[in-house]
């Protein structure tokens, strides 16, 4: 009898585990902002794919460089052709984990500080990244937000000296992802 109950409990436990939902978004928003006294430049990408596993803490952001939108055509061309070389390196990805999962209750409304660590790959260069952001839970809807400073030079992105004054040494990247439970 005991064994029966135990095995049923175990079975239920396994079902529970496999049912554990992942949070998924295909329409996340990532944008960057470069500020200098000469010029402010921003690009927005509204088609960021992201997967957040609340059980393991696994976190993925993935975007296509060409899906960044600019106000001015010339900037869009320069971004894709000269800086990011988007035909050669079409994607940028972050793969990592939330390291303070014990501090985040996905079942309870609130705004939680989240620490993430992992690897950021863009322009064919992969670098370790550790950053702090927030996880907001509101009526069961989970939103992840973070800001991160990217130094173009770290990712072998060469800025010609002619325009060096117009592009910030550190470009501010903002992440804003609203997830669907899946």
């Amino acid at each position, binding site marked *: 009898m005991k064994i029966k109950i135990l095995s049923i409990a175990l079975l239920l436990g396994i079902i529970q585990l496999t049912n554990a939902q992942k949070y998924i978004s*295909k*329409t996340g*928003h990532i944008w960057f902002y470069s500020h200098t006294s000469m010029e402010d430049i921003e690009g*927005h990408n*509204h*088609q960021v*794919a992201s*997967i957040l596993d609340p059980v393991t803490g696994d976190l*993925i952001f*993935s*975007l*296509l*460089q*060409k*899906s960044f*939108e*600019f*106000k*001015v*055509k*010339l*900037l*869009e061309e320069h971004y894709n052709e000269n800086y990011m070389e988007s*035909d050669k390196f*079409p*994607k940028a990805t972050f793969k990592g984990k939330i390291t303070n999962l014990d501090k985040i209750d996905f079942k309870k409304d609130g705004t939680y500080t989240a620490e993430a660590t992992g690897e950021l790959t863009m322009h064919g260069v992969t670098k370790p990244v550790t950053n702090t952001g927030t996880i907001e839970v509101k009526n069961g809807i989970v939103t992840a937000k973070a800001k991160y400073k990217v130094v173009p030079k770290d990712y072998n992105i060469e800025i010609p000296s002619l325009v060096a004054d117009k592009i910030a040494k550190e470009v501010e990247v903002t992440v804003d992802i609203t997830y669907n439970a899946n």
Partner: protein
Amino acid sequence: MSKTLKIVLIVIFICLVSAVIVLMHVFKKADVSVGSKKADINIEASALLKKFETNEDSANNQYLNKIILVSGTVASLTKNDQGVSVYLKNKDDAAGVMCGFDKTTIDTTIVKTGVQINVKGICNGYNIDDVELSKCSLAK
């Protein structure tokens, strides 16, 4: 009018014209859609997805930066500050085609969940498990 004055005036005129041309080029607005351009390829959303699922590299070679006219069923619409992302997905497929529209190029009275539409856009590649198009417009 002296000859020198004439030359100076002509030079000034040429400078002004070239300045205007350069400025127009520098500040030219980015295209919000490829609506006025002819599609390079016509394909169903499901078939396009399969090409990328089977071999991403060869699909990139074939479709990247091309203007594609894709037909499919609207599975979801997500609005943002600048426009709407329309997700075309066949019921039986695991993923689909994500189409980025500027808010000036979409009519949300026509584009609704469950409706079959034709979308013209530039193919940006394969993101995790979806194909992405941007600068989209509705096509007949």
